[in-house]
């Protein structure tokens, strides 16, 4: 952690896993917005009624039509998109090896360094 960053930056590049996952996250967020904009307004306009005549209910495959076109159908579309996105669009990235215990080791080292410093500092004064 004590390396001089300015020297390092030339040999470093932005992590491709970071870039890929950021791009993918934006697309997923976009999908969520599209789902919201499809389902809620469609259901609100077509499914929120007053004074419905029970005899004239519109159904599609036995489901009220507003549910079918507002929820069931986009649900299938969202599933198809999900499958395409995950299997064919998402990048297969290398997540690296797990540095088990590294965080702890680092803190222990820092702790000892601080202790040493305190002792040396105390001796010097």
């Amino acid at each position, binding site marked *: 952690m004590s390396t001089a960053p300015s020297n390092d930056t030339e040999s470093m590049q932005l992590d491709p896993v970071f870039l890929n996952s950021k791009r993918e996250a934006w697309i997923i967020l976009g999908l969520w917005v599209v789902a*919201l904009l499809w389902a809620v307004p469609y259901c609100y306009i077509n499914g929120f009624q007053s004074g419905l005549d029970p005899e004239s209910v519109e159904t599609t495959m036995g489901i009220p039509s507003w549910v079918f076109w507002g929820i069931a159908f986009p649900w299938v579309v969202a599933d198809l998109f999900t499958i395409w996105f995950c299997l064919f669009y998402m990048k297969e990235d290398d997540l690296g090896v797990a540095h088990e215990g590294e965080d702890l080791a680092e803190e222990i080292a820092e702790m000892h360094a601080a202790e040493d410093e305190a002792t040396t500092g105390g001796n010097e004064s």
Partner: protein
Amino acid sequence: MSFLSTTNVSLPTLFAESNPNAALVSFLIYTAAVFVIAALSNRLLKSKSFLSEYFLGSRGLGVWAFALTFAATSSSGGSFTGFPSKIYSHGWILALWIGSYMVVPICTMGLIGKRLNQVARRSGSITVPDVVRDRFHSPVLGLMAVSLIVFFMSFNLVAQFKAGSLILQTLLDGVSIFESTADGLAQAVSGIPFLSDGVSPEYLLCLLVFGIAVIIYTTYGGFHAVVWTDVMQGIVMVIGVIIMLPLAISQAGGLENTTKLMAKMTPPRFSAGDKGGITLTLDKPAAENMRVEVGTWITDKPIADSKVPLLFRVTAAAEIPAGETSVDEVKVIQLTTLDDIERILGRRESENFLDGVTVSNIDLVQYAYGEEASQQGAYIVGPGPSPSSNTGFLPLSLAISFFFMWAISGTGQPANMVRLMAFRDTKTLQRSICTVAIYYTLIYFPLVVIFCCARVLLPGMEGESDRIMPAMAVYLTEHIGMGWLAGLLVAAPFAAVMSTVDSFLLLISSAWVRDVYQRNINPEASEKTIKLLSYLATFVVGTVAMVVAINPPQFLQDIIVYVGSGLAASFLAPIIYGLYWRRVNAAGAMGAMLGGFGLHLAMYVTGYFENGSFFKPYQMFDFDPIIVGLFGSFFCGFIVTKLTAPPPQELVQKFFYTEKAGS
């Protein structure tokens, strides 16, 4: 077969009669399987880095394990009790309520999954507070995260223990060996005030059986036991739904017929909580104390000017003392839909009717939304009938809130995040998202269909709609003469709650061992100490939660709602910023965490002053507090970051940069 032929009992009848025992048998098989899995998992603990294995499965989950543990943990007991009960009570509008599940898998797993897994690997983080602490190199932030998790999740754990026991109690209701054991337990604890005051012995027995089973297998097997039991539980859930769907549709006379019948339904009238109800008068005085149980039907001739017979169903048990002829203020619901009334009267032989009574002093209230002429067809259109809200069950603002709630707030749940740290590689994540998407499609939309059919098949369950799932399982299977199948179907809700409890339990114990003890008290503790502490913490946390669940705090259900959205408001923004924004620093993450927590809490506190109850939160612009909390959290994090110094460059380099190839 010789037994069957000599006694002249057909196989289906035999199974149908043994129905309550089928639940017991399936529960026992189930529990046995869970223990086998725990024993196998424990063997894995011997070979690898203990903490990483015990709390994170050594980051090696494959597609099926990862997908199903993710799906099963997210669907708590609520998916199979609360959700069916809501569908039954409010109709087709629940399709919109749950609609965002079409994107929940890709959102909750895809938004942060890959990157969170990578960051956790890079620092060696095992828990969510670990990630926050390492990413921002800030022990204070880590402590804040662990405090929030322990505080919030402990309430949730108690609530899930309670839910599990109630579900088990419903399943085993009517099994003779269960009832006699409960009676024995009641006698055994009669001298202990804490265990006997106001606690039903059946509930206590279920809590002990359920609690001890979960605590033992989770403690012994750790993360892998939890994951593999989740897989089994996930499979049970989906099979249950797939079997129920065609049975429900065919027995309700087709989906078209169901929707048409639902269009004519009007909500029942009901007795208000404090006063009101009906007066029952017997033809002759009761010979001995007569108990009128919950679920009993009562019918009487139509009142003047009406052709519709009166039909009531008891919602709270009442008693007519010996020698008396009447009882006042019996709590009931009254059916108002002619088709439903005729259907129940048509099967009078098989239903539980109280005969020889007349009804008077009918003092019932109607739904706040759903009964007016202008609200006809309330069960098949929005916003759905509601007993208490005159804007209906799901007004537009709430529909939008639920899109945030499930997909976005689900991403911010620490229990889900831990799982995202445990998958093996990107390929696993990609395939798992697809698996969960298909899995949810097979569960959630079919549940809406099944319990819309339940409105037609089992009218008058509004008083005890939490029991609609087992009631429906028994009804559907008995009709095809396969009562034993109910055992499998009712195992589904039980499986759902079990798979949630075990994950929460491990989440809290990992917080104590890893985040509090190892990282703050004694970083140099030996592997042996940590191992012992992990077992001990899991065991103690589970036992304490179980003991608290004996007399759970009031408002538990409301607390869960508060906890679920509070966690997301506190954690989502710091994690998203930490993963995707190089400029964010520890102060910014702290601002996001405290800002989200504080604003969300403020909505509830304002609700206390405005609406008179902490659990009726203030709804800014009619939106749920989660939306205010989430936006506030992102906003605070952004502002604080911009006002403070950039983070140390080596930290940014560690998490956002790699060595150039070839350099």
